[in-house]
């Protein structure tokens, strides 16, 4: 792809986020802030039992409550199942409202629309549901035991509660193990955690008189919501206009159609009035998606000198009652198990297991935090047992640019080795690891992550990312894209990429994002750290076309010799070698419009990864070191410092990357130390931030970071992801540091003070 030949002026700058002022001053309008004339307030009735047949639902008392306009139950719906894996319809196992069976505490059973929230809430309490309880299972072991109840007995292809398996076989694992000098096998349990996004899910639907719907919903994936809403309502996709308002975070928890999206839509169609649902935080914790808990076993084989020769990896994912994004997590967990190091022989067996609990979905890292917690912990154990420094052992096996995992992936840029060297230098690793004060520890964890997926299980017929650029005589331009900024900063970054390539000031670019009927089709949404790379490439595809058009104008105006390059900078279009031969961007647009007899200058850009393996076009890498102090009497872990060296390719916006890093460390610390669901008989007990404990600002450690810049050939201007990968290394790094301080090696996250004291014989 050709690029503008002018110097980088916008890309690489710490430009504050476009949405920062409006969010910081409380003016940003989220779905829950919106109100339309005649709007009704919705409320969901969720199943109160973990597994049961529905014998009877009586909504008459709720309907009789003054102010209630409508109540819907499963039999009022078309009864069409949904799921993001449209390519494999058998995996689509969820109904927007349960019809004959509920499978977890939180399955949607009914929905109410009323003239006030209080009335809607009251009406929910008046709905009578008679359940015939069924036996329920809450653990992977119980779900796979002989005689366990079949959670999806309607799917005749399933003979047990495993909904999906995934296999990877590279080389000859058994033969390699036979030649190993050192073999290490470990099983760990990693727990479920909440996305804990700031904005609880909310949706507002406005119907028109012809049955079409406009939907503002708190989603990462407007296009997916459009498609699945249309299919579950049995109406044309083009009847559904999804508009993404400001979103208060998603982290993977908002990338599917959700029952309230469906119920608000159906209630709006039935009543002819706008309907809004806003979930409470308690509902979010009770019924919301979560990260997969997993039981993972890994066996690795080394030569005496520390060279890895094989890995045998098996994961059981605790999927909850439905597939949700579990199939993708099952797939990716296996891919991530093979990342970071060169495993010439690799075997993966992944199993997605149903249980009668809230479904696990995608969550920041999407299978990687689990796989790499074990991989990294095991590297640290192996380093200790082989008598090799953990960083040296990693350097010996680190993936480098050009590495290929047969049938899985190819690495087109990798700054992993450099990251390891850098983080060792930043932290004075060798000295600190060798001698530390009592109760202090230093540990390491590393990561690699995808920059978007190349798989198309959603089975879209459209390009993965698209945009449109319109240019005007006043020197401004308009970027229309379906890319969804949910707080990660893509609006700012895409504007930077476009401004850089067209030589414009970012402030001269108007942006319309993620209105599925107004912005070009399509974009698969914000997940898998795909937006910068995929939409960035789509923007560059469009700017390249725009530059070609405008270059013609300058060429004609100055009668340029064809050997001249035309450059774009500072709002001008000019001959690169003779800058005086140029005109303003706006003048060039005017010339183009006149030359085209009044046509508006509009170009479109697209990106779809093709022939790039099975996983991703590009991979980020990084190494992180955590320094902790453990109170030997209370077991309390204080994380003092976290240092990170990471390769995200070209850094488009250093400030935005820093924000991602800090947020990722916060999330990683919660995963490692304090976040967990407390559940009893399928019921989530800790449903507030008082008892679901996320790290607070006061808990944050000192943070140091260094960017290792590589140039990723598949990425826009050389960029890769910096969103999800950074959330991965903190748990293994902290865990290793706790081991270094106490001798306790955690194989059962989270690392609680009690576990430390029990392991060290203090309790």
């Amino acid at each position: 792809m050709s690029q503008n030949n002018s110097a980088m002026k916008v890309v690489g700058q710490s430009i504050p986020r476009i949405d920062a002022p409006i969010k910081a001053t409380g003016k940003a309008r989220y779905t829950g802030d919106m109100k339309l004339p005649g709007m009704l307030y919705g409320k969901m009735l969720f199943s109160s039992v973990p597994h049961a047949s529905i014998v009877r639902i009586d909504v008459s008392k709720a309907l009789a409550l003054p102010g209630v306009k409508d109540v819907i139950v499963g039999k009022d719906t078309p009864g069409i199942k949904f799921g993001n894996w449209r390519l494999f319809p058998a995996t689509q196992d969820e109904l927007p409202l349960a019809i004959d069976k509920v499978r977890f505490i939180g399955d949607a059973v009914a929905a109410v629309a009323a003239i006030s929230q209080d009335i809607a809430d009251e009406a929910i309490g008046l709905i009578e549901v008679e359940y015939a309880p069924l036996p329920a299972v809450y653990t992977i072991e119980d779900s796979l035991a002989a005689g366990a109840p079949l959670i999806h007995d309607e799917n005749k292809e399933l003979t047990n509660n495993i909904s999906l398996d995934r296999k990877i076989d590279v080389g000859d694992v058994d033969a390699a193990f036979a030649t190993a000098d050192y073999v290490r096998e470990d099983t760990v349990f990693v727990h479920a955690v909440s996305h804990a996004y700031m904005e609880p899910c909310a949706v507002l639907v406005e119907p028109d008189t012809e049955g079409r719907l406009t939907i503002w919903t708190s989603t990462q994936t407007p296009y997916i919501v459009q498609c699945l809403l249309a299919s579950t309502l049995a109406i044309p996709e083009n009847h559904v206009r999804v508009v993404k308002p400001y979103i208060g975070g998603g982290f993977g928890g908002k990338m599917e159609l959700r029952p309230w999206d469906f119920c608000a839509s159906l209630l709006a169609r039935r009543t002819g009035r706008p309907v809004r649902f806003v979930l409470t935080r308690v509902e979010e914790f009770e019924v919301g998606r979560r990260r997969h808990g997993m039981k993972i076993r890994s066996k690795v084989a080394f030569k005496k000198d520390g060279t890895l020769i094989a890995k045998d990896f098996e994961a059981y994912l605790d999927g909850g009652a439905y597939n949700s994004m579990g199939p993708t997590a099952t797939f990716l967990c296996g891919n991530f198990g093979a990342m970071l190091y060169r495993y010439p022989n690799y075997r993966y067996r992944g199993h997605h297991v149903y249980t009668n609990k809230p479904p696990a979905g995608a969550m920041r890292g999407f299978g990687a935090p689990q796989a790499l917690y074990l991989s990294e912990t095991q590297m640290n154990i192996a380093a200790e047992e082989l008598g090799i420094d953990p960083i040296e052992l990693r350097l010996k096996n680190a993936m480098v640019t050009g590495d290929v995992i047969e049938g899985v992936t190819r690495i087109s840029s990798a700054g992993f080795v450099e990251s390891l060297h850098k983080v060792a230098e930043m932290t004075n690793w060798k000295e600190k690891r060798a001698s530390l004060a009592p109760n202090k520890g230093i540990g390491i964890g590393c990561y690699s992550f995808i920059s978007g997926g190349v798989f198309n299980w959603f089975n879209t017929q459209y390009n993965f990312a698209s945009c449109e650029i319109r240019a005007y005589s006043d020197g401004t331009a308009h970027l229309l894209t379906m890319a969804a900024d949910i707080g990660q900063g893509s609006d700012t970054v895409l504007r930077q990429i476009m401004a850089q390539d067209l030589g414009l000031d970012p402030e001269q670019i108007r942006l319309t994002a993620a209105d599925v009927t107004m912005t070009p089709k399509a974009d698969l949404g914000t997940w898998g750290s795909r937006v910068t790379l995929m939409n960035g490439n789509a923007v560059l595809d469009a700017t390249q076309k725009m530059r070609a058009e405008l270059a013609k104008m300058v060429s004609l105006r100055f009668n340029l010799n064809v050997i001249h390059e035309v450059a774009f900078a500072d709002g001008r279009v000019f001959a690169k070698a003779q800058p005086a031969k140029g005109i303003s961007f706006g003048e060039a647009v005017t010339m183009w419009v006149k030359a085209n007899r009044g046509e508006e200058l509009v170009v479109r850009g697209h990106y779809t990864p093709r022939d790039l393996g099975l996983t991703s076009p590009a991979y980020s890498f990084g190494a992180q070191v955590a320094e902790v102090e453990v109170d030997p009497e209370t077991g309390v872990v204080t994380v003092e410092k976290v240092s990170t060296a990471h390769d995200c390719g070209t850094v488009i916006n250093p400030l935005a990357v820093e924000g991602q890093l800090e947020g990722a460390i916060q999330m990683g610390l919660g995963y490692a130390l304090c976040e967990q669901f407390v559940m009893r008989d399928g019921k989530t007990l800790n449903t507030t931030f008082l008892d679901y404990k996320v790290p607070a600002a006061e808990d944050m450690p000192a943070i140091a970071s260094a960017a290792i810049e590589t140039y990723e050939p598949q990425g826009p201007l050389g960029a890769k992801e910096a969103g999800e990968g950074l959330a991965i290394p903190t748990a293994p790094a902290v865990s290793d540091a706790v081991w270094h301080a106490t001798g306790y090696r955690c194989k059962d996250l989270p690392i609680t003070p009690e576990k430390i004291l029990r392991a060290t014989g203090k309790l």
Partner: protein
Amino acid sequence: MSLPKFTYCEPKTLEEAALKLAEYDGRARIVAGGTDLLLGMRRGIAKPEVVISLARIAGANAIVASATELRIGAMATLAEVAQHPLVQQHFPALACAAAVTGTVQIRNMGTVVGNICNASPSADTATPLLIYDAKMIVVAPGGERTVALAEFFRGPGKTALTQGELVKEIVLKLPSGTTRSNYQKLSPRSKVDIAIVGVSALLAFSETGAIRRARIAIGSVAPVPKRALEAENMLEGCQLTPEVIAAVAAVAAKEAAPITDMRASEDYRRSMVAVLTRRALQQNQREQQ
């Protein structure tokens, strides 16, 4: 969950507030900062028909000292108490506890009296006030009475207040002679969290360095915050040695009656009572030396 409907009133005097409270006989609640009450109402745990605010009562937020006492008014916030110079000087355990309760926002709204009247076993300010022999001045339409804090807590969420009664202020006697006191809080999940164990200890030393008077109070480890009386008795007249401290800490742990809940296990809590008691006594000793 939205807040249920209720009537809100703002009396101008304590007497008026007490009358209102008596008038609605069990259907009204007093609100000071509201940081506990509103959460309870949102969750449907508290369902008052009438909410009586103390916000308009002149002087209700006063923290005033005489030659012998310090009085903390019903509307004095956690932040005001934490930052008050006399509290910091004479009652450091209380200043510390008020400074680590909840978050900045909660400390700016929530009150010390409210923290006590909410009667949570884990209330941060409860154990400091116990070691300072705090007295609660209780008003009712008929007049006033004084209740020792040690008699005030009757169970989780339960106090000695009867219908129509509210707390006007807390009275603390200014210490005479050399005393040392501090609060130890353990909240292992986050620095911004409920205490899973809280221990306050006060030691008054004689001129020979022997312990003239001892107070140890433990929180989050029984249905009410309470004094560890046996542990206190062991200390009186003693010189502090590592052996004495260890023995006292072990007895304090025995006096705890913790439960296992989603925040911590019974074992861990009991064991931490010993650790925190020891640390509290050691800190007193260091400050004395």
